[in-house]
């Protein structure tokens, strides 16, 4: 029969092994409290516990390209309510991280925003709130960028007028070099798998 899901445990093993907090999903008993408490649930293609189900079923493609794994607002509601103490949020972050590493882009804007954010943290040790959006906007190309930029110009201006835009460019922290060493080490040591 068509669209029959074939169970394949290998992906589950992959997730347990390579995804941050991936092995926590073993404890899920499908109560649905995570989705029930998720602010962006209605925009997700799969509720979290179904993502876990798909992982168990071995549906690699569906999971890693699911927009659900990148719609997490990090509000922790699922984390505090899960009756099996599964850090659902961490699992979603882990999956998103893993998906990007594997070359999937579940959510374009969030992905580039997050990536730029981290790049800046890595480069400066701090975040430059006026520089970041610019980089994000332009990560999609020049024309895209200008559109997006203009789109948010009003907000930027208002912030500036109300002393809420640091005008001087953000300087690197003194210890940025050593910070980078630490982070590089962590990147190698931690889970999350090698880039595809």
């Amino acid at each position: 029969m068509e669209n029959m899901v074939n169970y394949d445990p290998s992906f589950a093993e992959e997730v347990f092994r390579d995804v941050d907090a991936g092995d926590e999903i073993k404890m899920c008993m499908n109560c649905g409290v995570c989705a029930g408490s998720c602010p962006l649930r209605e925009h997700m293609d799969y509720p979290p516990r179904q993502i876990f189900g798909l992982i168990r079923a071995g549906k690699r493609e569906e999971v890693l390209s699911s927009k659900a794994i990148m719609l997490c607002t990090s509000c922790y509601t699922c984390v505090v309510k899960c009756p099996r103490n599964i850090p659902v949020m961490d699992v979603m972050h882990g999956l998103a991280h893993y998906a990007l590493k594997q070359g999937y882009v579940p959510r374009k804007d969030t992905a580039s925003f997050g990536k730029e954010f981290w790049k800046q943290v890595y480069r400066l040790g701090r975040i430059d709130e006026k520089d970041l959006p610019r980089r994000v906007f332009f990560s999609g190309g020049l024309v895209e960028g200008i559109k997006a930029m203009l789109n948010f110009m009003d907000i930027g201006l208002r912030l500036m007028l109300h002393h809420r835009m640091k005008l001087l460019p953000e300087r690197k922290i003194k210890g940025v070099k050593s910070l980078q060493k630490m982070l590089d080490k962590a990147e190698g040591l931690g889970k999350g798998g090698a880039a595809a």
Partner: protein
Amino acid sequence: MADVQTTNQSILVVGGGMSGITAALEAAEAGYDVVLVEKNPYLGGRVTQLYQYFPKLCPPNCGLEINFRRMRQNPKIRFFTMAEVAGISGQEGDYDVTIKLSPRYVNEKCTCCGKCAEVCEVEIDNPFNYGMDKIKAAYLPHEFAFPMRYVLDPCLVGTDEGKKCLEACEYGAVDLDMEEATFDLRVGAIVWAAGWDPYDAAKVDYYGYGEYENVITNVMMERLASPNGPTEGKIVRPSDGKEVKNIAFIQCAGSRDENYLPYCSGICCLASLKQTTYVRELYPDCDVTVFFIDIRALDRLEDFYTKVQEDEKVTFIKSKIANITEDEDTGDLLLEGENTRTGEQILMNFDLVVLATGMVPNGIQVDGAPEVPCDEYGFLVNDPEKTGIYGVGCVRRPTDVASSVQDATAGALKAIQSIARR
């Protein structure tokens, strides 16, 4: 005061609920001396507050009455109400136990004529109905109370109201000078049958119990359905007394949840299934929705589940409800969750929500008592190496009446063995 002759051939049973009564009777009817202590002013325990048992939908008082009759005719059993264990020392075959009696302010002369209640104008929250209504501070705990004797609330002591009660009694049964008393027992074995308390539903704060009037617990539901309950058996909304048209049962409200009670409370599924029949019997048009994780209807109790499923007005949704908010204007409740069968979001309104709260065991909280092992949840563990004190019924595991009675009967034999070993 109470002068009770016992020996190391006697058995002490702590807790006068279904388990304790059973353990006491089974041992006594085999010829052993038994002392039964109960902290309430009446025997019967938690089941006296139930409307019906599953799956037969029969009244708990039916079986209790038989048990009380068994007690009445059996000189081998002596029982004390408003009594608690204050101290235990010694070892198997030879325990010294101190019993604390709280003052009832009514002595054995009470004929139950009710004069004290007639004159008393002070009212207190009715403990029998979980505070859902008021009762005179001079009261008979409930119609079937055994022993059939009134109680005066301590708040009457040293008041004019108290005096009024005293003067109203033609039989000199009111005694406001009564004080806490203790007496000692020597026994060979102890059966601990202190039963359970409902889990405090307020701890699961996102369900709003204690905050939203129309969110109640399963034990409160039993009182609402009971003809001798606060509403004389009418199941209505606490907020406005309206008849229920659309009710939700939330299973595992605290149970099977590592944030609250990690264990399964065993009886809540059947209790809620039973309560759906209360509602449906009363209101043929009422819709019922049961939110569950797994329905746990063991053995032939499955038949009851099947029966309830056949009622087209009862819907089962596999979902742990994630949040409840109240509509301040109507008192209705908005439930949020995920229907895990369809993956759809649940946003449903109900006019009454019943939380299937779980069981918390009443372990042995007696200073200096011989150590009795218990698990991380507080349930007593009967260790074959540590004999002499035996937990029975819901202090051992959350379980239904029939199983508690089986366990209590077993506990009686264990106690007899402790004595036989001497």
